[in-house]
C-alpha cells in the first residue's frame, strides 16, 4: 500500500550529528540525488569550531543544511522544515534552527541519560515538553542499522557507523529522491571493500524501507524539478569553483598557475584543491607564513606566472606590505581573501563580509588596487577568471573577495563550455630594438610585463618610487605626484572595462534600491522576491566590482529615493557609496557570523518603505 505524497514548492532539510557521524557526507549525497532530480538547491555545511570536541557535546555537532525547490532559490533557507538529529547534542544545538511546527527525526537510540546530560540538557527533551509544537519522529536508527547489517561479517562498531546511511535512506524516501545515485556512489567508494559496501547498502535500504513500510510516517513529499536552462549541470561549492576558475584562467591565458599560501580556515580548501591538479602544471607552495606566501607569489609574478596567494582576514593583514609592493611594482597577482567572522582570530569557522574596507585601504600610502568579489558559490569560477583578466591586463595586484559562506556552500552550476570562456592575453613584452622602458604605459596605462630570461629587456624594479618611463629610483616631487596619480588613474580606468551595474526593477517604479555585494546576493534576492510577492516594488543591484565601481554606479544609486545596503558588517559598502556618490544610503547590518536571513531583510525592506 503506497503512502500519500504531498507536493511542496521548497523544502529545507538539516542533518545534524556528532563530528564523527558523517553528516557532511550524508548531506553531500542527499544533495547529489537532489541535483540529479533537477531541483534548484543551495546548501550550507556548518562545521564545529573545535577540531573534534568531545563526542556527544554541542561543541562537537556538525550539521549540513540544504534547501531545494521547484523554482529558483538563492539561499539554504532561514529555517529548516526537517531536522535529522543523530543525538541529543545535535537536537540541542540545532532545534532553534527549525521552524515552528517543523519535523524532527531523532535517533532514539542515542537519547540515553548519559548522552542527554552530555548535551547539556538537565532533563530528557523527549519527555519534558521541549519538543511541543514540533512533529517528532523517534526512530531507533542505530539498532535498526545494526540489525540490518547482521550477518555481513563486520563488527558492531563498524555496523553502527552505517547509521548515517540509514538516515539518508529514510530522508531519501521522504522526499522521493532516487536511490541509484547513492547506490552507484557507494559502489565507487566502497566497491573494493565488500563488507563495508554491503553494510552501507543494507543500512541505506533499511532506512528507505523504514519510511515506506512503517506506520510512523503517514506521507512523503514531492518537490518538482525546477525549470532549468538546457545544459549539463553539476553541483559546486565556492572553494572548488574558485580553484577551478583559477585553473581555467591559467588554461585560457597560457600562464602557468602558481599558488603560494599558508593554511588558514576557510581558505585552506583552495590550497588543498589546487594541490591535486599538478597535471595542469599547477605549482602549489605551502609557505612558512602569509608574508612569505605573498612574496613567493610576487616573485613568480615577476617570472611570468599566473601568481595567486590565498588567505583569510588575518593573512590579508600580514600580506598588506607585500601587496603594496606589488602595487608599486605593477605586476599581475591575485590575492584571494576568503573572509571569516570577527576581528583578530574571531570566529574562524563563521562567515562575515567585513574585509571590504581593508581590501580598499589596508596598505600605507596611496596604493589603489582593483577589487572583485564573488556572490555565489558558482560565481567564484567567473570571479576568478575576471580577477585574472584584470590583473594581467592592467599589471596589477587584484583582491578577490569570497567568504566562508560562499566557500562552503554549494549550488547547481551549468557547466560552461570551455571554449566560451574569455581568453586572456599575457602580452609579454618583447625587445623592439629601442631602449626598454619598464614604466612606459599603454592606452590603459598598463606597463610592460618583461620576464627574466628575455634578452634585451633586462631591468630592475623595486618598492622605492619609480621614475615615470625608465623605472629608475626617483625622489623627484613632481614625479611622485605623477606616479601616484597614474597608479590611481589606471585602477579608476577599469570602470569602463567592466560590465555596467545591472538593475533589476521589474515594474520600473521602485523607490527603494537594495544594493548588495558578495554573499548576501542570495538573501537579497529571496527577501526582495518576498517583498514583491507582498506587493511592494523594490529594485535590486549587485556589485561584483568593488573597486572601481562600474561606471554607471553613481547614476544607479542616485536614481532611487532610498538605497538600502544589507551587509554582514557594520556598513562598509555603505560608507564607500556614501563617500563617493553622496547618497544617503542606509546600512542594514548583521554581524553574527551567519548569513542574513531573507525574512529579516524582508522586514527591513518593508520598514524602510513604510518609513
Amino acid at each position, binding site marked *: 500500500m503506497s503512502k500519500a505524497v504531498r507536493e511542496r514548492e521548497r523544502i529545507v532539510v538539516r542533518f545534524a550529528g556528532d563530528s564523527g557521524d558523517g553528516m557532511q557526507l550524508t548531506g553531500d549525497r542527499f544533495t547529489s540525488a537532489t541535483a540529479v532530480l533537477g531541483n534548484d538547491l543551495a546548501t550550507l555545511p556548518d562545521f564545529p569550531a573545535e577540531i573534534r570536541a568531545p563526542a556527544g557535546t554541542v561543541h562537537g555537532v556538525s550539521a549540513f543544511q540544504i534547501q531545494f525547490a521547484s523554482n529558483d532559490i538563492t539561499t539554504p533557507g532561514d529555517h529548516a522544515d526537517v531536522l535529522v538529529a543523530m543525538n541529543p547534542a545535535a537536537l540541542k544545538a540545532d532545534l532553534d534552527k527549525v521552524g515552528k511546527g517543523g519535523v524532527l527525526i531523532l535517533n532514539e537510540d542515542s537519547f540515553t541519560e548519559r548522552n542527554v546530560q552530555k548535551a547539556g540538557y538537565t532533563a530528557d527533551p523527549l519527555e519534558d515538553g521541549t519538543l511541543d509544537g514540533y512533529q517528532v519522529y523517534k526512530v531507533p536508527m542505530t539498532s535498526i542499522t545494526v540489525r540490518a547489517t547482521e550477518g555481513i561479517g563486520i563488527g558492531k562498531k563498524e555496523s553502527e557507523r552505517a547509521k548515517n546511511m540509514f538516515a539518508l535512506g529514510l530522508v531519501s524516501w521522504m522526499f522521493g529522491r532516487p536511490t541509484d545515485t547513492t547506490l552507484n556512489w557507494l559502489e565507487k567508494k566502497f566497491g573494493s571493500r565488500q563488507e563495508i559496501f554491503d553494510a552501507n547498502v543494507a543500512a541505506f535500504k533499511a532506512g528507505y524501507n523504514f519510511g515506506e513500510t512503517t506506520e510512523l510516517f503517514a506521507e512523503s513529499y514531492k518537490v518538482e524539478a525546477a525549470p532549468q536552462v538546457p*545544459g549539463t549541470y553539476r553541483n559546486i561549492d565556492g572553494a572548488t569553483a574558485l580553484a577551478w576558475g583559477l585553473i581555467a584562467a591559467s588554461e585560457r591565458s597560457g600562464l602557468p598557475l602558481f599558488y603560494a599560501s599558508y593554511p588558514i580556515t576557510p581558505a585552506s580548501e583552495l590550497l588543498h584543491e589546487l594541490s591535486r591538479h599538478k597535471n595542469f602544471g599547477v605549482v602549489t607552495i605551502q609557505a612558512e607564513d602569509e608574508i612569505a606566501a605573498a612574496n613567493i607569489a610576487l*616573485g613568480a609574478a615577476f617570472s611570468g606566472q599566473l601568481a595567486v596567494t590565498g588567505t583569510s582576514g588575518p593573512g590579508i593583514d600580514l600580506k598588506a606590505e607585500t601587496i603594496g609592493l606589488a602595487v608599486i611594482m605593477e605586476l599581475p597577482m591575485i590575492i584571494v581573501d576568503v573572509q571569516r567572522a570577527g576581528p583578530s582570530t574571531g570566529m574562524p569557522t563563521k562567515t562575515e563580509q567585513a574585509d571590504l574596507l581593508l581590501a580598499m585601504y589596508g596598505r600605507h600610502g596611496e596604493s589603489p588596487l582593483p577589487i572583485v568579489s564573488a556572490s555565489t558559490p558558482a560565481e567564484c569560477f567567473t570571479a576568478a577568471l575576471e580577477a585574472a583578466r584584470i590583473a594581467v591586463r592592467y599589471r596589477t595586484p587584484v583582491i578577490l573577495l569570497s567568504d566562508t559562506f560562499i566557500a562552503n556552500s554549494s549550488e547547481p552550476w551549468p557547466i560552461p563550455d570551455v571554449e566560451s570562456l574569455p581568453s586572456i592575453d599575457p602580452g609579454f613584452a618583447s625587445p623592439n630594438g629601442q631602449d626598454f622602458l619598464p614604466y612606459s604605459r599603454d592606452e590603459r596605462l598598463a606597463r610592460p610585463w618583461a620576464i627574466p630570461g628575455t634578452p634585451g629587456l633586462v631591468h*630592475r624594479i623595486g618598492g622605492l618610487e619609480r621614475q615615470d618611463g625608465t623605472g629608475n629610483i626617483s625622489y623627484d616631487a613632481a614625479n611622485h605626484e605623477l606616479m601616484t596619480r597614474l597608479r590611481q588613474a589606471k585602477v579608476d580606468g577599469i570602470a569602463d572595462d567592466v560590465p555596467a551595474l545591472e538593475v533589476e526593477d521589474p515594474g520600473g517604479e521602485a523607490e527603494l534600491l537594495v544594493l548588495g555585494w558578495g554573499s548576501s546576493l542570495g538573501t537579497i534576492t529571496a527577501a526582495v522576491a518576498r517583498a514583491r510577492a507582498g506587493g511592494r516594488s523594490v529594485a535590486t543591484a549587485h556589485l561584483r566590482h568593488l573597486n572601481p565601481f562600474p561606471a554607471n554606479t553613481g547614476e544607479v544609486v542616485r536614481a532611487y529615493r532610498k538605497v538600502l545596503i544589507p551587509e554582514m558588517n557594520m556598513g562598509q559598502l555603505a560608507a564607500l557609496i556614501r563617500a563617493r556618490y553622496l547618497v544617503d544610503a542606509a546600512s542594514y547590518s548583521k554581524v553574527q557570523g551567519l548569513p542574513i536571513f531573507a525574512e529579516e531583510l524582508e522586514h527591513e525592506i518593508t520598514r524602510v518603505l513604510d518609513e
Partner: protein
Amino acid sequence: MSDVIENGGTAPGDAPTLTKKDFTSDQEPRWCPGCGDYAILSAVQAFMPELGIEPHKTVFVSGIGCSGRFTYYMDTYGMHGIHGRAPALATGIAVAAPELSVWVVTGDGDGLSIGGNHLIHALRRNVDIKILLFNNQIYGLTKGQYSPTSEEGKVTKSTPFGSVDHPFNPIALALGVEATFVARTVDNDRQHLTEVLRRAAQHKGTAFVEIYQNCNVFNDGAFDLLRDKAQGKHNQIRLEHGEPIVFDEGNRCVRIGENGRYEIAPTAETDPDGIVVHDAHGRPSLAFALAHLSRGPDEPSCIGVFHEVERPVYGQAIQHQLQAAKERLGPGDLRSLLHVGDTWTVE
C-alpha cells in the same frame, strides 16, 4: 612552464664571451665613500662572466638596507623587495623559472632580524638560490642602530647604554637550520671572495655566504682582525676541505680535545694526528664546532666553505612532481575537470 633543469646550481651556459661590463648597470652606486659594499660589487660583477650565464638569465633580488641597493647596480634582471623578504621573492622566481641563476643580497638586519624566518626556511628547503649576507654588524641605511650580529654591549643610537642582546652566529644559525652550503668570506679579499662565490654558484641548492663587510661610517673596523693584511694573516683560519686546519703561518692549529671538542692550540704542541682535518662534506656538527671556535670576528675565525652537502633541490622536486603527474594522469584537461563527479543534463 620552464623546462626542468636536472641539476640546479648554475651550470655554465654557451653564451658569447661576457665581461664585467655586461653585468654593470648604468646606475651610479651611491654608498658612502669607502664602504665595503663597493668591493663586493666589483668582485661580483667581475666574477659573473665566468659563469657563462647571460645577464638576462640572471636575477638579483635584495631587501632593504645599504646592501639592498646592490640589485640596481647589476645589469641583470632585479627585484628590490621590501625589508627582509628577499629569500621569499627569490623562492618564487627560482621555483617558477629553474633555468635562471638567482642571487639574493641581504644584510644582517634584513636577513637576520626582520627576515630571519624566510632565511631559515629557504635554507631548510634548499631552494636554488645563492644568498650573500653582507654582515656589517650594524644597521647602515637607518643610520646606525645595533643589529642581531652586533657584539654585546654595543653602544649605538638605539642603545646609548649598550646593547644587552647576545648576537647570532650566522654560520651556526645556518648550520642549525639544515643549510646545505655554508661559507664565510671578507669584502676586501677579492681572491677569497671570488673563490667562495665560485663554490656557491656551483652548489646545487641554497648557498649561504656570510660576507664580513666594513661599514666605515657606523661601525668602522669591526673586522680589522681578519680584514687587515697584517692582522689577517695571523687570525684568518682558512678552511680547505681535506686539509688539516692550521693557521697563523702554521703556528697554530685546530685540534680535537676531550669528548671530541675542537680547540685552538699551538701546532708545535699538537700531535699531528690530533689536528682536525676539515671535512666540508660530512655532518654539520663538525662545521658547527668550527663556527664556535671564536665568539666573533674579534677572535681568530674561520673563513671559507664550512659545509657543503647535496640534497634534493626544492624547485626541482616541485617540477618533477608536475612532470610525474602529467605522465601519470595525462596533461590536465579543463573540460574533464569541470565534469568530474556527478553531473546531470537538462534537455
